């Protein structure tokens, strides 16, 4: 039994014993309430999940995904900035830094429009609904589901969106992935933002401040 479980059990048993003894034997109400408080605290601790094994598996899958994407981008000389579309598509410029003008045809890996060639990748939707609240969606995916950071704050001003990710943990992404798409947290955040806002999103800049990451996202117009 690990230390936390032992502590929870000890607290629960102590609280129950104190509450019962204080109420029935001593007739002391404050001590009874204290025992009940200890019992409630131990129940709360018992109900709080620690690290879910599914979360670790999801992060391992994301890390493998980052390695594969980095190899593809290295091979094709991909460059930033990338454009995230709300339907879960990522367009990465190849050999240039232009923004796409046309929506890619389905199932294409390389897409050519008037502004150049783009690598077409699929990004997971994470179950985010279109036109939902951006901060709630980011918190749901990045904090609650994947545990990639401890907190999210969003500030929107016209087409500029500032996203602050607090308590970001390093996931060891390949250098090419970081260069083109930023960290995995930035990549997931941009993908969720595009889906939540129901409009294309471009990552304009990423700034690291201690354990926080500040993303500058630009909201674009829909592609033809």
């Amino acid at each position: 039994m690990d230390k936390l479980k032992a502590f929870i059990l000890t607290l629960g048993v102590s609280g129950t014993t104190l509450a019962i003894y204080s109420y029935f034997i001593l007739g002391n109400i404050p001590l009874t309430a204290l025992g009940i408080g200890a019992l409630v605290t131990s129940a709360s601790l018992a109900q709080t999940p620690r690290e879910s094994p599914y979360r670790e598996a999801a992060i391992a899958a994301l890390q493998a995904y980052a390695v594969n994407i980095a190899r593809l981008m290295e091979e094709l000389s991909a460059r930033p900035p990338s454009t995230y579309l709300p339907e879960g598509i990522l367009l990465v410029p190849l050999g240039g830094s232009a923004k796409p003008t046309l929506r890619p045809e389905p199932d294409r890996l390389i897409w050519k429009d008037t502004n150049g060639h783009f690598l077409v990748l699929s990004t997971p939707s994470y179950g985010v609904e279109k036109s939902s609240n951006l901060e709630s969606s980011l918190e749901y995916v990045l904090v609650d589901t994947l545990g990639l950071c401890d907190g999210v704050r969003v500030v929107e001003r016209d087409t500029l969106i500032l996203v602050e990710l607090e308590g970001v943990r390093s996931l060891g992404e390949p250098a090419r992935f970081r260069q083109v798409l930023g960290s995995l947290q930035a990549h997931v955040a941009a993908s969720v933002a595009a889906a939540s806002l129901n409009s294309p999103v471009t990552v304009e800049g990423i700034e690291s401040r201690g354990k926080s990451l500040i993303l500058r996202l630009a909201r674009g117009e829909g592609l033809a």
Partner: protein
Amino acid sequence: MLKKDIIFNSVLPAFYSVTVAFLASLGEKRLDAYLSLLTLEYLFLYTILRPKRRKHDLVLIALLVVFFIAVALRIAEVLGI
């Protein structure tokens, strides 16, 4: 555990300790008064911090049930039922 879960599970017993000490110093002898405040504090912290739970928050449900029973008994006592 997430940071907010750690904060919740640390602040909750601190609130409880202060509340029990305060009510005891006032000479409060009714158990339902203590339970009502413990329930309200749990609900207040839960609403502010939204700690992660495995499924439903059974502690909150149990506290609310006890709270409503205590309130119903008090009302019955006042009405002489």
